[in-house]
């Protein structure tokens, strides 16, 4: 199963490091990622393989959100199929 992790908020040092650290500790493999800064808004999305994750989906989502809160970032973790079904025919 693959999930899309989306991070939005104010750009700062170490965002990527902290989020990938949470992923690594959960044994979640980051497959792809893009990031941009649009008018001071930091936007990053990562595609991650969570099939070998050592925590359940809701716990992974909570851990990442908590990590985001500490840096005043908004983080969403959603199964990739929702984006595929909404935006691809």
């Amino acid at each position, binding site marked *: 199963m693959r999930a899309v992790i*989306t991070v939005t908020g104010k750009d700062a040092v170490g965002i990527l490091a902290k989020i990938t650290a949470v992923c690594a500790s959960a044994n979640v493999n980051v497959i792809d990622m*893009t990031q941009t800064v649009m008018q001071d808004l930091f936007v990053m999305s990562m595609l991650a393989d969570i099939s070998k994750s050592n925590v359940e989906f*809701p716990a992974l989502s909570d851990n990442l959100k908590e990590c985001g809160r500490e840096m005043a970032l908004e983080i969403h973790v959603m*199964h990739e199929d929702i984006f595929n*079904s909404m*935006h691809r025919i």
Partner: protein
Amino acid sequence: MINNSDILETIKMIRQEHLDIRAVTMGISLLDCVDADIGKSCGKVYEKIARSARNHVKTCEEIENRYGIPIINKRVSVTPIAFLAAAAAGNPVKFAEALQRAADATGVNYVGGYGALVHKGFSAGDGALIESMPEALSVTSKVCGFVNIGSTRAGINMDAVALMGEVILKTARATAGNSCFGAAKLVVFCNAVEDNPFMAGAFHGTGEPDCVINVGVSGPGVVRSAVQKSPGADISEIAETIKRTAFKITRMGQLVGTEAAKALGIPFGIVDLSLAPTPAAGDSVAHILEEIGLEKCGAHGTTAALALLNDAVKKGGVMASSHVGGLSGAFIPVSEDAGMIDAVTAGALSLEKLEAMTAVCSVGLDMVVVPGDVPAPVISAIIADEAAIGMVNNKTAAVRVVPAIGKKEGEILDFGGLFGSGPVMGVNRFSPEKFIGRGGRIPAPLTSVRN
């Protein structure tokens, strides 16, 4: 990888524009629960629902987590209880109590199906069940009722229409201490559908499989926002924008429905291509119409704008889903839509205009609050008018009207939650009593030579 702007669009729809799955409804057949002993029949009803829907809420919650999309209601619809009441002598309210117990045990928000199909006449059990509705809907909190009083093929059963005026009034009186809420759980239909996931009118038709998952989507906020982004667009472009947005909304419903069905091991039924509003700011169908260019919902032009909206929602949605059904179209419940409430309060929207609007969109007169002193024949006549629109136009039409006991036009009846609060609307007081009192049936209409 999916591109960033698509990802952000989805997240914005969910977080800021109230995109959600309004209802995942499990339809359950109770035909194998028929028994001549009402106690035994109720036992079977409870047991079957509790068994079939035991994982319904949990599964929906897992899907909410996995996809990050809220599922507001998890519901159950059942075979019309009149079928069971026909075989079992005794007070049908016992069935309502069994449904309530099953709802409590499974954690679902509502159970629909306490009703009867009487469009051509009453059979055994129908009369007793309809007469029991005021009690059944007042002693239970999660049980919803419906009665189908007409269809395009059968015409309109005016005896049933007359009876339902009384039943609605009695139900409102029986729940007068609770904002007349019983009447908000009762829908009168013409051309009722068998796979509707939406309450209060959901029931599980006899042509359905033993157990099935039906999904109702929402998203007025998303459609409004999409229209807002094209201020100079002509109407063709507006229709195109709505279609594209409806496609995305419905795809999400299709995904959730198929995933829920797979996880529960039961067949996926349909997606209801609906625009269902809530009283929350930014989740209003009336506001879409205003965004298209009306000063207030109810102004001249509203029916045309609504026809455009309703059609575009269906066209966009139908390609997004493998099976479409239910009520499919824009809903215009008054108390559940902030823009509709405003329009009534401002004097822009009358009951007559609302009736005209129902000719071109889904469902009918929904969550309309009328003064508590309106006589039963007037309520029956409101039902007859709406049923005639459904019958002649070959569409589902429904009436969910709530007489606000002790309140007058202009006052507010507050239900709370998703049901919102309804301003009491003015009603034409000239009497239809003789017409309603005649009884009999309106013959089925000619469906060719249509003018």
